[in-house]
């Protein structure tokens, strides 16, 4: 059969690959009328190179990136994938109870100074208690696994990491000081706004709208199955590399909690979030854009 092929570049064994593997295993791509090809990559930078270099049709990343690309004239579009966010963790035995206790202490942050979780938490601390995390603490940016380790060893007093590390941190004896979604809510942002999504080139969306719709359909079907069918997750176990039952459970719960509601993204809520990020992250994050450029989100 001559089904059109769509290639997604994704971290091998990463959370995205859970969904992609589910799609392929249950034939959800064929059901939606296309063939899903997966290009395994070893990290986020590689996925970006693959997309930019035209070797992949889609990757999963956040829509800030899309907004920035659009602002610089590159036509990329965003299809919601997950609203899962991380949080700030401290060791169980830590004396830190409030964010303000972190004054003069070290925070380890995965993903760099433009990490969305970090920016949201900064905005929240500033608004909630006039506490400027950036000024009052020392930040150590590093690769996610290193931040995890630094948090566990107590080398940093708090750690902000990607959501799938939450489970590991919790399992290893850390507690969440504040979750990013709580912080977002407190800021008046909509926690339902999915941050991560499939990013496709505008050209593909224009030329093969059916193919893109089919990806959306297959993705949704996979999410539905993973949300309800424990066996479907159980099948992914070897891929997930959970070290124990608790971690596995936390990963499953985290994934499920991150599944965005069906329907289009609330552009107004997104615009609000973007405006806040633009202030905190500056041009480094959003580039020349001052407001959310139009056309980031694909209509459902």
């Amino acid at each position: 059969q001559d089904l059109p092929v769509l290639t997604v570049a994704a971290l091998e064994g990463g959370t995205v690959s859970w969904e992609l593997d589910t799609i392929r295993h249950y034939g959800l791509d064929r059901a939606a009328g296309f063939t899903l090809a997966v290009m395994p990559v070893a990290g986020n930078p590689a996925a970006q190179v693959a997309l930019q270099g035209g070797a992949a049709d889609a990757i999963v990343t956040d829509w800030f990136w899309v907004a920035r690309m659009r602002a610089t004239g590159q036509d990329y579009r965003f299809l919601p994938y997950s609203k899962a966010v991380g949080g700030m963790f401290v060791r169980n035995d830590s004396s830190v109870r409030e964010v303000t206790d972190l004054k003069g202490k070290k925070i380890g942050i995965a993903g760099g100074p433009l990490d969305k979780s970090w920016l949201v938490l900064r905005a929240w601390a500033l608004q909630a208690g006039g506490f400027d995390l950036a000024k009052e603490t020392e930040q150590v940016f590093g690769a996610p696994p290193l931040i995890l380790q630094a948090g566990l060893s107590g080398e940093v007093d708090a750690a902000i990491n990607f959501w799938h590390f939450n489970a590991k941190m919790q399992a290893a004896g850390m507690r969440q000081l504040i979750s990013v979604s709580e912080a977002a809510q407190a800021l008046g942002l909509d926690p339902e706004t999915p941050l991560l999504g499939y990013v496709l080139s505008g050209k593909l969306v224009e030329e093969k709208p059916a193919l893109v719709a089919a990806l959306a359909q297959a993705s949704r079907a996979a999410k539905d199955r993973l949300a309800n069918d424990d066996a479907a997750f159980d099948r992914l176990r070897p891929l997930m590399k959970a070290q124990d039952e608790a971690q596995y459970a936390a990963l499953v719960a985290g994934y499920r909690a991150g599944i965005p509601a069906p329907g289009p993204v609330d552009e107004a809520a997104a615009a609000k979030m973007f405006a806040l990020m633009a202030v905190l992250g500056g041009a480094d994050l959003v580039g020349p854009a001052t407001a959310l450029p139009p056309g980031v989100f694909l209509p459902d």
Partner: protein
Amino acid sequence: MFRALASLAVLVLLWAGLSALLADPLRAPGPQQVLPALWQGIVSGAILPDLAATLRRVGLSFAIAMATGTAAGIALGLMPRLDRWLDPWLTVFNTIPALVTIVLCYLWIGLNESAAIAAVALNKVPLVTLMLREGVRVLAPDLAAMAQVYRMGPLARLHHIVLPQLAPHLVSAARAGLALIWKIVLVVEFLGRSDGIGFRLHLDFQMFDITGVLANALAFVAVMLALEALLIAPLAARAARWRDA
């Protein structure tokens, strides 16, 4: 041979001691964790395709870079005027970060094997050029005079006068080169390939599987040790035969 194995055994023991001292198998796995993982990968054959892919890339780009770099280094060394013009370029190309070359190669050539090999070779050529040029600069002038009097042809001069004097520099460049190339191949595989030891190693790192990272690294170290013992060392010894007699 025996001494080399004994010396490696000592190294493994030291490592075992260190890891026992640190007593943190997750972050500082010892040989007792890593070697079985490596062995597992080898007997199950799981590591072999990646090893083969990486070896092919290393081999190809090594060959290209050594040939180009040696030729360029000899040319620049013999033509000081050209050299004075191109010297700043060498510094520039030597200083451009591997990341930049790699990304640009992938973007401009495409996300394929040629781009990967071109990126590695590009990173390595200026280094080889530089090392060989330094060697050419100190070539013995009296032997050049001898070759001139006896009208030795360019190929004969290269073979009998120039290359033997460059041997220590070539050996240096080859050794430094293999090490450097493999480091770059790791990044190349990380940024745009779907197989290879570098790909695996970064995946393991993402999963914070230090044992896996080390097992992958060791696989390549083992290959390099074999290459060194079976190829480079004998070649170097052959080139130095006259000195040791």
